[in-house]
């Protein structure tokens, strides 16, 4: 059958099970958009390409499916870069299609030409520049295969305009993907599983350190089974929030720079550290020589290159987390108690709970807002965050019970991620409440997406913890730069309530503690448009506790009541 390249592309997307794409049209993708016009694939028109790619990312994180977005050549592609890098750092499966100038113009500095495969080379799992229309079907198949298997990640496919316009005789086939250099990881080394089991069976002070790999591998149930069988306390990374229920008595909360003292102390004292789907990021380990100094380390990860990258491990297990845990669990001898270790841990929990002070007049404590959100949702919501203080408070003061309910730019730390990601998440999971916990700085980085959320009637709730500062940078300036608040005062800002209304969204301002609950309840009632709640929070509240940069994770600052 004669088909245009663009038609073949959409046909292949449907075969991959894609029902929604996020995008922004332009000259070089006109043929694709022309084909989309008649397609049953739903297209969400963002207001900026960065919004489109973060929305696709939020969609992927919330659903576990591969997110898809489309942008035009040149600036369309370059506007995606931050979003692609965000997905890459957090191992999120995305397939990103960019338009390219026509084949004959490539390399001629044509209008809106940018070397997007070159630009995205170090921030993609793989990328393609299409050379023949005949290759569309194979490349799309490979792109999805690569994006979602092994350690997931973004794949960019650059599509020259003429090749999308060109018609060829197309015959569909169901050939398997064949790539000599890429194989899907199957199985785990049983020798190492036996070693790991022995080590865990003998451990007196074990800790599980779980990360995003548990979520990517859909292994939360196995993780819970192992922890409960062996009574092992679990701390999660930012990316691992929700991989293990924060409400469990075995949960230590997050570890690392703004983790709980309890989690950091437990890692500091443990004799066996079971690292599952993690990469020993510097925000977790702090000064690496002081990280888990007494522990034998078992490291389970799908990516062999992560093993031994930052720390030396005693038992490396390369493979799917789910598969590894499944073969490990039967070899573990169930324990009744680990009483001494648990007593130590409860003592830390009692002695060092997360806590915060009282607000000044006309302000609210930001932590209180997050606690209220938890109280009202009971964890049955998807929380997205921006980056900075809002992100840390969202991680600290909300208990995540399920995987895929906490969406945050962990690796790249992208301000402006949370709101578009919330839109994507809500489209993926219309049954769930979706709340973006934002800062006044971050929200302004992609606030134009209010247009998208209003157009498609996406009822997400944006809770701005508005301290009129770039709070996290201000906090560091306060602690480490003699309080010289260099360009972090953002007092000059729009009236967020009026701004919401101008877009056709709902805007609410809250400046008193007693109004917090009412505002949230009101916002949760809205079902046909986004809501901004502008919480005026204590201007100089800090995120505590904190491991100062370059310090041992045991030397945490703050968290006492007088702050």
């Amino acid at each position, binding site marked *: 059958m004669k088909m245009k390249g663009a038609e073949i592309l959409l046909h292949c997307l449907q075969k991959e099970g894609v029902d929604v794409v996020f995008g922004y049209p332009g000259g070089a993708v006109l043929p694709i958009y022309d084909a989309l016009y008649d397609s049953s694939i739903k297209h969400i028109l963002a207001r900026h390409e960065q919004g489109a790619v973060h929305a696709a990312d939020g969609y992927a994180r919330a659903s576990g499916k591969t997110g898809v977005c489309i942008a035009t050549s040149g600036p369309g592609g370059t506007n995606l870069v931050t979003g692609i890098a965000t997905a890459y750092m957090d191992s999120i499966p995305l397939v990103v299609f960019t338009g390219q100038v026509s084949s004959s113009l490539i390399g001629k500095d044509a209008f809106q030409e940018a070397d997007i*495969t*070159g630009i995205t*080379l*170090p921030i993609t*799992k*793989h990328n393609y*520049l299409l050379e023949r229309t005949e290759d569309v079907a194979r490349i799309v198949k490979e792109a999805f295969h*690569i994006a979602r298997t092994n350690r997931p990640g973004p794949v960019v496919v650059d599509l020259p305009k003429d090749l999308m316009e060109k018609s060829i005789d197309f015959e569909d086939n169901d050939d398997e993907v064949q*790539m*000599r*250099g*890429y194989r899907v990881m199957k199985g785990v080394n049983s020798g190492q599983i036996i070693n790991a089991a022995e080590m865990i069976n003998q451990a007196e002070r074990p800790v599980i350190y779980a990360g995003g790999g548990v979520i990517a591998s859909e292994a939360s149930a196995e993780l819970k089974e192992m922890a409960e069988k062996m009574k092992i306390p679990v701390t999660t990374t930012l990316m691992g929030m929700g991989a293990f229920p924060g409400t469990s008595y075995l949960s230590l909360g997050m570890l690392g720079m703004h983790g709980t003292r309890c989690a950091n102390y437990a890692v500091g004292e443990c004799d066996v550290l079971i690292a599952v789907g993690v990469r020993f990021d510097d925000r977790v380990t702090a000064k690496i020589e002081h990280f888990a100094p007494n522990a034998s380390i078992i490291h389970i990860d799908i*990516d*062999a*290159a992560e093993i*031994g*990258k930052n720390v030396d491990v005693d038992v490396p297990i390369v493979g799917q987390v789910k598969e590894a845990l499944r073969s490990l669990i039967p070899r573990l001898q169930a324990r009744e108690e680990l009483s001494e270790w648990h007593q130590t841990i409860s003592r830390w929990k009692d002695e060092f709970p997360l806590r915060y002070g009282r607000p000044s007049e006309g302000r609210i404590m930001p932590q209180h807002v997050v606690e209220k959100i938890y109280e009202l949702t009971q964890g049955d919501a998807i929380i997205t965050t921006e980056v900075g203080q809002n992100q840390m408070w969202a991680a600290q003061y909300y208990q995540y019970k399920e995987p895929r309910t906490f969406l945050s730019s962990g690796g790249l730390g992208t301000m402006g991620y949370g709101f578009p990601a919330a839109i994507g998440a809500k489209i993926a999971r219309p049954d769930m409440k979706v709340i973006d916990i934002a800062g006044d700085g971050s929200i302004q980085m992609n606030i134009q997406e209010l247009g998208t959320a209003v157009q498609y009637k996406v009822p997400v709730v944006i809770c701005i913890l508005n301290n009129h500062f770039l709070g996290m940078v201000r906090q560091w300036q306060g602690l480490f730069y003699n309080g010289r608040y260099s360009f972090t005062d953002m007092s000059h800002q729009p009236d967020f309530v009026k701004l919401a209304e101008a877009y056709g969204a709902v805007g609410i301002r809250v400046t008193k503690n007693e109004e917090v609950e009412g505002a949230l309840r009101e916002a949760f009632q809205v079902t046909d448009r986004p809501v901004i709640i502008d919480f005026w929070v204590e201007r100089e509240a800090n995120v505590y506790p904190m491991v100062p940069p370059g310090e041992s994770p045991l030397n945490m600052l703050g968290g006492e009541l007088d702050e």
Partner: protein
Amino acid sequence: MNKHTLAVIVENKPGVLTRVATLFRRRCYNIDSLTVGTTENPGISRMTIVVEGDNKVIEQVTKQLYKLVDVIKVIDITRESAVDRELVLIKVKADNNVRAEIVQLVDIFRARIVDIGRNSLIVEATGDRGKMDALEDSFRPFGIIELVRTGKVAMVRGSK
């Protein structure tokens, strides 16, 4: 620092060299030399990369290379019994007074003279890296006008 020789078997596709080079730059690995060429299979190219680093670095380099979709196989042939060769072209000053001496040196190194100019010669030689270094040192006193080395290519001995 140890030098390791990696044979990297890759898809013969545009951009593969960039992917490999970008990986080395991005992860701050030091490339000592890199050669690339076709193999007996037209779909496959072979790179010979000499990289500096301890075993831990080489392990990371190898694992990171394997993550590239276009990389099919990585073989560390440093410790293997391998044949390695480099080709060098040297344009050396050679007036009548020293020509005989140079020709003698060329014989000793089993090199070849491939061009004769009025006051210079171009010498071509192949051999392992040590021999090429020695050759370069021997010609230096005459005055090297221009020198180019291909970088190392290597192959494991025997039927492996």
